[in-house]
Every structure is written in C-alpha cells, then in structure tokens.
C-alpha cells in the first residue's frame, strides 16, 4: 500500500476513482457520530458530589465521504474533545461511532485498531506532536512499523509521504524536529498521518499556529492531498474565514452541543441560530468603515460544570424566552440539509418569534 501519486492531469478533472477500501458505498457516510457524550469528573470533593464537566453532550453528526466538515466554536466548546472522541484517544461515556457502516466497538479488538488507523489526526502544536529525539523518518515510520511493516518498507513509506507533502527526503528524513520551521513541522505531521493510509483526517486547529502565508501554503497542500488521495477531512478551527475556504459543510458547537449544521454557504449567508449569527458577526471586516464597536456577544460562556437549563445559549441570547429555559431545543430542519437547535427558528416550538 504505497502512496503513489496519480498523474496530475488525471486528478484535475476526473472524479476520484472509487476507493477499494470503500465498504458502504458512496452514500454511506464516512463517519457517523451518534449521541456522543463525554463528561469529565473533576478531582477533589467527596466522591458522591464531584463536579462533572460536560465537555461533549449528546453530539450527533455525520461526515460524508470526500467532504470537508468544518467544526467551529469558541474555545472550550468541546471541539477538541470531539476530535479526540472521533480518533479514539478518548473513550466516550455513551454514544456510538460508525465508520463506513461498521460500528467502532469500545473494546480493544483487532478490528478497532484497523478502523482507528483509517482515522488519523493532525494536532495544533506542531512541535509537541513530534518526538524531539527521533528523526523525522523515525517518527513517520513508527506507525507503519507497529502495523507490521518491515524496517525497510516503513522507511520507504516515510520517504514517499515526505515527498507527498513537499519535503525532499534526501534533505529532511534525518533531521530532528527542532531543525525545521513551523510550516515544515506541520507538513511532517501531515506526512505522519498519511503514512497510516487514512481515509479520514482530523485537522484539529492544524494551521492555527502558523503565520498567514505559511498557513495558506499548508491549506493548499491539504486541498491538493485531499484530491489526490481522495481523503475526507474534519477541519476544526476557530478561524471562520479559513473554515469557509476549506469546508463543504459546517458544524457549529456551543458548550458541548451542536447548535447548527449545514452547507457552508447556508451557514454563512443564512445562519439560523442566534449563536451562529453572533459568531459570524464577530469576524473583522476588511472595510474600515464597517468598524464594529458593539460586541456581538457579551460575557463569558457559562461553565460546563453547571450549564444553563433548557437551551445552553439562553443566558447570552437576545431572543431568550420562557420556553428556552424550560426545554432544550432539538436540531430541526431549516431547509435542505440545514439543521439548527433553536426554538426561535422552529415552528411550533412555542417561542414568540415563530407562529405557533
């Protein structure tokens, strides 16, 4: 399973050839997250009354084959915990993951490992995610090695993925992480993920720490790799412009919940959830005449230890009414492929803003 670059001309127009590893067919989502929940118990206090952080609370979504799903939200909204749940670094308290039609069972069977390898992740901190004592080649070859590749095959593979991310193995294979720039290091992290032959790549703030020109280069590289290797991306970022550039669909999270999900243009042009609207209006405009003086949203997000009853956004929401305190809104259809969890956008919810 050597990554061979298909001829550039062929990839430019033709649709990606069906992946031989495809089990469920093109309509089967690559990954389905079903009511994923992860609560962290804080230390301290008496065992019966320890505080629980509801980092991710019944989050459901799917990632379709070949798409880029952007996940946005403030810090602490559960983006990174969701990423760790998807890749299996954190075990969910409840909920299920279905990868290409196969359920990922929460036990350490061989099948789980195989599935795990189909999902890889690129971390935000390009330096901390590379072992400082290993050469780049050793770091990249580690994954294939533990999968049973021979030493030579793993080295071969490391060099081929280095080439794939635009780093010449003759120059870089034997370097150490501290000898590289941030952009080069992030390319190595991408190469390390690709060495496992993944079908789904989770990019957790993968370009956020890079400066803008390097960020653009790495984003272009990611787009190119996606087309060449028919990858699927989950792109997590707080940078709304980058998410818009990268994604086909966007998922908005607030305090461990999905508040809105839909095609990128619908989310950006016609957001239905007041939190999404606030988030989008927090972007800076390029036009100095459109300078913003009033913050779109006041205050800090409430604590995850004791989230508000009903709708979690109601404490900061201009539209909040009695119903928002009493009932947690479910995701409801807002047009084709567009869901939002807001009473004010759901007819029949009892909210004053919509006809009963």
């Amino acid at each position, binding site marked *: 399973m050597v990554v061979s670059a298909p001829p550039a001309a062929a990839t430019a127009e033709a649709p990606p050839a069906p992946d031989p590893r495809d089990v469920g067919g093109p309509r089967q989502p690559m990954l389905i997250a079903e009511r994923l929940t992860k609560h962290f118990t804080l230390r301290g206090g008496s065992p019966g009354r320890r505080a629980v952080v509801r980092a991710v609370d019944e989050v459901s979504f799917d990632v379709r084959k070949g798409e880029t799903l952007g996940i946005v939200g403030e810090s602490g909204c559960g983006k990174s915990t969701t990423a760790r749940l998807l890749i299996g*670094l954190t075990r969910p308290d409840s909920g299920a993951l279905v990868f290409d039609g196969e359920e990922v069972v929460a036990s350490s069977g061989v099948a789980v490992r195989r599935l*795990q*390898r189909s999902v890889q*992740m690129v971390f935000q901190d390009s330096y901390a995610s590379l072992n400082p*004592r290993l050469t780049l080649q050793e770091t990249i070859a580690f994954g294939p090695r*533990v*999968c049973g590749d021979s030493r030579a095959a793993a080295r071969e593979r490391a060099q081929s993925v280095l080439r794939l991310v635009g780093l010449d193995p003759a*120059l870089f294979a034997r370097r150490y992480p501290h000898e590289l720039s941030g952009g080069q290091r992030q390319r190595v992290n991408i190469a390390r*993920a690709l060495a496992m032959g993944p079908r789904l790549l989770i990019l957790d703030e993968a370009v956020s720490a890079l400066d803008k020109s390097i960020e653009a280069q790495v984003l272009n590289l990611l787009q190119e790799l996606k087309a060449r290797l028919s990858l699927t991306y989950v792109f997590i970022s707080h940078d709304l412009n980058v998410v818009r550039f990268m994604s086909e669909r966007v998922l908005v999270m607030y305090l461990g919940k999905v508040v809105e999900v839909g095609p990128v243009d619908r989310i950006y042009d016609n957001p239905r959830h007041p939190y999404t609207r606030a988030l989008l209006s927090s972007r800076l405009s390029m036009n100095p005449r459109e300078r913003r003086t009033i913050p779109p949203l006041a205050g800090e997000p409430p604590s995850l230890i004791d989230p508000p009853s009903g709708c979690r956004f109601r404490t900061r929401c201009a539209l909040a009414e009695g119903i928002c305190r009493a009932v947690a809104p479910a995701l409801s259809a807002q047009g084709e492929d567009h869901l939002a969890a807001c009473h004010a956008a759901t007819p029949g919810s009892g909210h004053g803003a919509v006809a009963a």
Partner: protein
Amino acid sequence: MTDRALELAAPETPRSWVRRPASYWGGVATRLARDPVTLICAAILLAIVLVVIFAPLIGLDDPYQQSVVRRLKPPGTPGHLLGTDELGRDLLARLVYGGRTSLLMGFLPVLIATLVGGTLGIVAGYAGGLINTAVMRTIDVFYAFPSVLLAVAISGVLGGGVRNGLLALTLVFIPSIARVSESITMHVSTQDFVDAARATGAYPHQILIGHVLKNVVAPILVFASSLISISIVIAAGLSFLGLGVAPPIPEWGLMLSTLRPAIYVAPLNAVLPGVMIFVTSMCFNMMSDGFRNAMDVKA
C-alpha cells in the same frame, strides 16, 4: 535576468551538505568531542579508576603496614611519596586502596538505585492512576527524611560495614531517582506526540519503548551520574561518623576522620583524602553536566 534569479532561488535537489551523524549516539559522541572540560574530567576519572583497579599491580606498599617511628612523615619522604598517616602507614597506598572502597560506595548504590528507582518511576509515570498513587506515596514516605539523616538512620539500625553502608545508600537514592523518573515520564507521556503514536494503534509497550524511553533515559542517567559524587560524600560522612567502613579498611571518609587530629601537625597529610573526595566528585558532576549537553539533540 529574472529567470536567472528564479533558477538560483529554486535549486534542484541539493546534496546534503551538512554532515549528519549516523545515529543518535554518533551525534552524542560528536558533541562530546567538542567539549574539552568534560573530556578532561572523564580522563581524570578514568585515570583514578584504572589506578584503583590495578592497585595490586603497581608496586605500592602494604596499606595496613604500621610503623610507630614513621608516623606523619610529610609528602616527599623517600619511600613514601605522599608521606604517612597517624599510624605510619603509606598514604599513597591507603589513598589508592581507599579509592577502591570509596568509588565502590559511590558507584554501586547509584547503579542499583537507578535500576530500581528508574523502573519504579517510569512505570508509575507512564501507567498513572492507581499504580502511580501507590508507588509514589510509598516513595514519599522515604522522601520525608533528609538523605544524610536517612542514611545515618539506616546504617545505624543495620550496623556498620561496607555491605550495610551500600544498602543504606541504595535505599537513600531510590526515592529521589524514582521521583525524578516519574515526573520526566509523566511530562513526556502527556505530550501530543504520544497521543499521535497512540492514534496509530500502537500497543502501550511499543509507545513506551519507541517514544517515551528515548526521551526519559538520558535525563535520568544524567541525574543519576550527578548522584555519584553525593554518594561518595555521604559514604565518606558515614565512615567519618563511624557508621560506614570500619577501621583499618582504607576509605577516604574514614581517613579524613582519623587524620583530623593531625591537621595542625601535618596539614598536607590530613587534607589529602579530602582532596581526593573533592576531585572525584567534582569530576563526576562536571562530566554529568557535559553528558547532559551532549545528549541534547538541539545542541
């Protein structure tokens, strides 16, 4: 003109013009070779160790042979290059044979404590949770006592002698090595690169060997090597207090103790064992500093 500039900006695959060491240890050797202080310290230690090991072969006097008439002869006396001690024994012979005991007391406890404490610490740091709590709280009990006091207490209970001295020193060093190992391992195993390795589906032992140990062993070894000098000094202290080596066995600390009353009569003779302790422990310390720098791939 512009074309030319572009050509220069993007050369075709350059040969690697920076010479790269073949391996990690090759790099360590290259960096060590550029550090004269470390090399000199290592050379002094090597000389001391060789002399001490081959002591019976270099034609020294009997370190136990006493002579009432030849007491406290100054250094340079014919037949006694470094003079004699308070019982007329040849000081050079006693220093060399004393070095055998002292170096053994410095090296062996640290070696055993590194194996035991290092293993405990790495396991505790990597496993975390209950195992960590169990191991580290037990270690904390020992850590509550100052190391010299603990050594004195243990050898006080066990009695004097080389073997009990070694045991006491080993027990003294296990907690500190375990604690250092645990905190380094804990720090390393919470880094993103360990998560990334976990995401490849590697088993815990593969991650431990492939990623964690490489980052942990060098700092632990450096810390341990800095303990050798402390071990020599504590061993000397035990002997000085009459708890370690029993007379007439030569040992630097014990010699310092028995020569102490002669400090006004024959200061040079009295100071010599102390000089040996100082030189040896300082060389160990500076060498471990040098090794720490050489083992850092960023240097």
